[in-house]
């Protein structure tokens, strides 16, 4: 009676019960995407919607992103929630620069994404003028569902990305 080709030895069977194999990149990205530490840069009503998103009803912790940090050195996902005026630009840039890699940026709401309805003397026409943005969430303000959807899109993006991120993914004009 010959041994079946798919038969595993006892040692192999034991090993399969305690370990599995994957690619290093997938494993690290899996860890990263499920433990985002957000830093809210809240300047307007979008930040109020974000409060609801973090609260128990919408509960962003279902997606592992509930540990909100107020120091850029402890966060890896910058959420720009609201209108950013031109004068605020250098401050936002400084906060982004203080964050360590890997880091991601979500522009929440139309003001952060494109200036929104402020086409006037003072409002920056999208924060991607000064920092790279990974996900744009539309809405004025977006619903908590919208913000969660943006988070999920960012998780998708992290899954697809490599471990080592290229710092100048986007060419910034200044």
């Amino acid at each position: 009676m010959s041994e079946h080709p798919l038969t595993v030895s006892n040692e192999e069977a034991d090993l399969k019960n305690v370990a599995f194999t994957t690619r290093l990149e997938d494993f690290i990205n899996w860890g990263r995407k499920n433990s985002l530490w957000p830093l809210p840069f809240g300047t307007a009503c979008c930040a109020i919607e974000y409060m609801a998103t973090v609260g128990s009803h919408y509960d962003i912790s279902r997606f592992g992103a509930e540990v909100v940090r107020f120091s850029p050195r402890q966060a890896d996902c910058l959420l720009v929630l609201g209108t950013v005026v031109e004068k605020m630009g250098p401050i936002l840039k400084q906060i982004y620069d203080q964050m360590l890699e890997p880091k991601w940026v979500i522009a929440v709401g139309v003001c952060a994404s494109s200036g929104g309805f402020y086409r006037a003397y003072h409002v920056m026409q999208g924060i991607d003028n000064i920092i790279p943005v990974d996900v744009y969430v539309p809405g004025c303000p977006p619903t908590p569902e919208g913000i969660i959807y943006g988070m999920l899109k960012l998780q998708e993006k992290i899954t697809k990305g490599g471990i080592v991120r290229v710092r100048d993914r986007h060419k910034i004009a200044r």
Partner: protein
Amino acid sequence: MLETDIKLLANILPHLPQAIQSQILAVEEFLAETTLTVRRESLRQVIQFLKTDPNFCFDVMMDLFAMDYLKYVPETPERFAVVYYLVALLQNRRIRIKVFLPEEDPTIASIHDLYKAANWFEREAWDLYGIKFEGHPNLVRILCHAEFEGHPLRKDYPSDRYQRLKTTTSSEGL
């Protein structure tokens, strides 16, 4: 209470000393609020009187802002105006003081020493309307960024003229 107040303020003019009365160009009543239009050169004199006179005691300056009456109908005596809101806390009374300023020389005496609150309001009026407050200790922009040119709330400022920060890259000194 309200009626007495209306009576008192409607009859404010006779209670003022002759030296102050002669500086008042117009008295206007609207929605139980009195507006005095005052000669430009005697603004400080009138405000000082209203603040210190025991019959009035307007001890708080609530607001100070500028107006641009360009293309305003009906036409005003001059293009610009500065409006002061004073409150007498004990009598629960309010009064508006209005001064018209010519387009070619929008200059008015500062009242920062009479009301400390006027300091930043005067900077705001300078920033947004280009009203010069003589005697102000630090008449520099307060809202717009340091490289901003012009005064954005003037009616002849193009509503879509957006000014970017070009050389400032750090948040210091803004």
